[in-house]
């Protein structure tokens, strides 16, 4: 019985996770659509310098204390020419 519940995240943890995500976006005032638009533009800029998979670029807004930061991650391929 105990094991059955143990593997599940508590509703308290779920609430915390949801709040972190919601507040990060609220604090910056960027709605989902705008964020995707920005992601596409950033991906396009990176691809001008390095050949990348445009869909693999990810952007995330994170907040700690009252500071908010934007995290962009993109896998970069190894160069093929010498």
């Amino acid at each position, binding site marked *: 019985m105990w094991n059955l519940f143990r593997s599940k995240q*508590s*509703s*308290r*943890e779920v*609430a*915390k996770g*949801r*709040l*972190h995500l*919601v*507040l990060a976006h*609220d*604090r910056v005032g960027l709605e989902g659509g705008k964020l995707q638009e920005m992601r596409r533009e950033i991906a396009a800029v990176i691809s001008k310098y390095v050949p990348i998979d445009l869909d693999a670029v990810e952007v995330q807004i994170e907040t700690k*204390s*009252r500071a908010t930061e934007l995290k962009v991650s993109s896998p970069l391929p190894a160069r093929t020419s010498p």
Partner: protein
Amino acid sequence: MGRAIVITSGKGGVGKTTTTCNLGAAMAQLGASVVLVDADIGLRNLDVVMGLENRIVYHVVDVVQGKCTVQKALIKDRRLENLWLLPASQTDDKDAVTPGDMRKLIAELKANHNYVLIDCPAGIEQGFKNAIAAADEAIVVATPEVSSIRDADRVVGLLAAQSISTRLIVNRISSHLVKKGDMLSQADVIEILALDMLGAVPLDEHVVASTNKGMPAVLEGKSLAAREFTRIARRLVGLDVETVRETGGGFFTRLTRALGLSSAPAA
């Protein structure tokens, strides 16, 4: 010269009015001269929570429109030596008062009393702007729920933009649910909102009964909620600065120390 403290939350129904009523009564019990101002024009409630609804003659809009003096509109609470209520109007709308009116009114009250507690309406529109216009500091009330904390965070941002220093009261916390993992703890709320905490008021059925009767819980004895309201009032009037009480064991105590909550609040 007194201090004006606005009690606000963003979301409705989280206990702003009950908090204003109990902190005001507890501060008056401790000897401070306190005026409670109901800034929720059109939807007044502080009068019924205080049990003073039958004694209203004038209200805040009458004062602003020059129909009577502030002194004349204040209702003296007969249960305590130095507690007064300035009721809201029930018929006007929020635009009947401007931020400028509020600054003038609150300055007059501060000249004659130690503390002016302003009960802010829910929302972040005109009523909120009026209520915070004259505040020297703010108390944000939040319940440990996603929607309440989200709205509180919005309000914290708006208060910060006006350079109003803000502290937090977590209301209706149940240590039983926190232990079960079904409620955010006070430490969780502090971490998420990144605010200094004044106190955490437990979920307590005594408050429901007190509100039914129009009697501040702090005047009815030592229920858990009443004790916490009194403790917060002591902090507000600068009587003592004990640590936030724990509900979740030793870890929380360490966390509050790490967050600097054990130290004296800024004057």
